[in-house]
């Protein structure tokens, strides 16, 4: 159906009548996501070089990328065997959780897939089926990685709380341990504000008032709904902070800086 279309109404990649700076947001998201995930990818395998240590010796200050610690301990054997970084554990939980997260999907579909780059700006894809076909239909598995990600919430809190204790010196407080607690808190909020969790706790119900059980679920749903409004904020803040804490602990662990704290050593 070849039909002439008046020039101002044509379709096509990047075609738009917008003259505001619509490209700023996708460009910023592209740069930030690339930087943060680039660093985290490097961090997973980086156990050599000037930033190679990711745990401050004699303490429980461990980069959260490498939580949980007890796995790091077992890992001594794995490492010899297949040279597997203990941080590969994040590949079964946190990484797929973020990759299939409804917020991150919005972010990377816009900034990386340019589908669309911004609202009312032409889509890059010549034909489009979205998440209705393989491979993107796999995004429906988000709930499963959410269940796994939930396990990481207590694990990170345990790691953070342990960091307030130095073997042989007892309990205390330092910038590193505070940062780890902040990291655990933000990761918890990011997980607890998940859209799939919101559905799981009560969103799937049609009648909240029908029984004591559904009324209880409604109360939890109310909280998750409240946190869910800030899902984008939790997604970014938890990502920024895990990168910052990883960098900080590596700097301390490799002797570049000293962690201000109440203990006498390091």
């Amino acid at each position, binding site marked *: 159906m070849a039909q002439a279309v008046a020039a*101002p109404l044509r379709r096509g990649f990047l075609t738009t009548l917008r003259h505001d700076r619509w490209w700023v947001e996708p460009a910023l998201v592209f740069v930030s996501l690339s930087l943060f995930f680039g660093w985290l990818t490097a961090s997973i395998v980086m156990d050599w070089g000037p930033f190679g240590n990711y745990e401050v010796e004699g303490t429980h200050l461990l980069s959260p990328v490498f939580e949980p610690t007890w796995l790091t301990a077992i890992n001594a054997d794995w490492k010899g065997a297949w040279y597997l970084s203990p941080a590969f554990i994040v590949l079964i939980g946190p990484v797929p959780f973020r990759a299939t997260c409804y917020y991150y999907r919005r972010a990377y579909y816009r900034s990386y897939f340019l589908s669309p780059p911004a609202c009312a700006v032409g889509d890059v894809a010549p034909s489009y089926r979205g998440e209705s076909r393989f491979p993107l239909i796999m995004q429906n598995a988000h709930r499963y990685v959410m269940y796994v990600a939930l396990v990481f919430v207590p694990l990170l809190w345990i790691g953070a709380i342990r960091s307030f204790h130095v073997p042989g010196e007892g309990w205390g407080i330092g910038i590193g341990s505070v940062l780890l607690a902040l990291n655990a808190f933000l990761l918890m909020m990011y997980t607890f504000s998940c859209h799939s969790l919101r*559905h799981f706790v009560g969103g799937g119900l049609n009648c909240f008032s029908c029984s004591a059980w559904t009324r209880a679920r409604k109360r939890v749903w109310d909280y998750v709904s409240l946190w*869910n409004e800030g899902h984008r904020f939790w997604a970014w803040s938890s990502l920024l902070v895990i990168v910052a804490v990883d960098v900080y602990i590596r700097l301390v662990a490799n002797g570049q800086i000293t962690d201000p704290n109440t203990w006498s050593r390091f």
Partner: protein
Amino acid sequence: MNETVNVRVFRGDAESGGWRDYAVEVEEGQVVLDVIHRIQATQAPDLAVRWNCKAGKCGSCSAEINGQPRLMCMTRMNLFAPGEPITVAPMKTWPLVRDLVTDVSFNYETAKTIPAFKPRPPEADGFWRMQQEDIERGQEFRKCIECFLCQDVCHVIRDHPANKAAFAGPRFFVRLAELEMHPLDTEDRLELARRDAGVGYCNITKCCTEVCPENIHITDNAIIPLKERVADRYFDPVRWLGGKLFGRRRP
């Protein structure tokens, strides 16, 4: 305090048309629709534009102002910086009738495909009872004024017209979510949502939410919950097994 601004309006039909510049006087407090009316009254009596309430409630005056889908009657002229070029174009996703008027019948046809509310039998005294907490979610969706701006901005059909056969669009996901979450409704529309309405085409990039003049959280409160319900039914082997073993429950 009146000032004269330059407004660029699309004139023409689908085959031929282009921009026409008008110098118009603007009074304080006026909206884009006022300016279009002034052009109509003083310079171009044949300028086609659809409107009704001028109060953001009838959903007739949808257009694209500086490339952004908006209601003309709710876009104040003081939104624009002095000297900023102002363009007014018809919605891009629908066939153009003339000037700013498009044929939005896609939406009326799509509406017909959604099975209506089907309540369960009333209680013994002949009444239906619902609790406020159970219908609150649906009340947000009922604010919809059917301006079809969300439909217009959605890249699934805006940039890929061929998808119109397979995709109902955000306004109808709002409608489907409203009915599916209704505490009294007994109809099952999840197969429709997945197969005919194509909720899977949506990649939750949220432009519909950005343009909705009623501030309905289309993506967060309607589309994502709908996707999750569809996932419960079709993409969740554990739930599927649970359903087979213990029977499906629909509270």
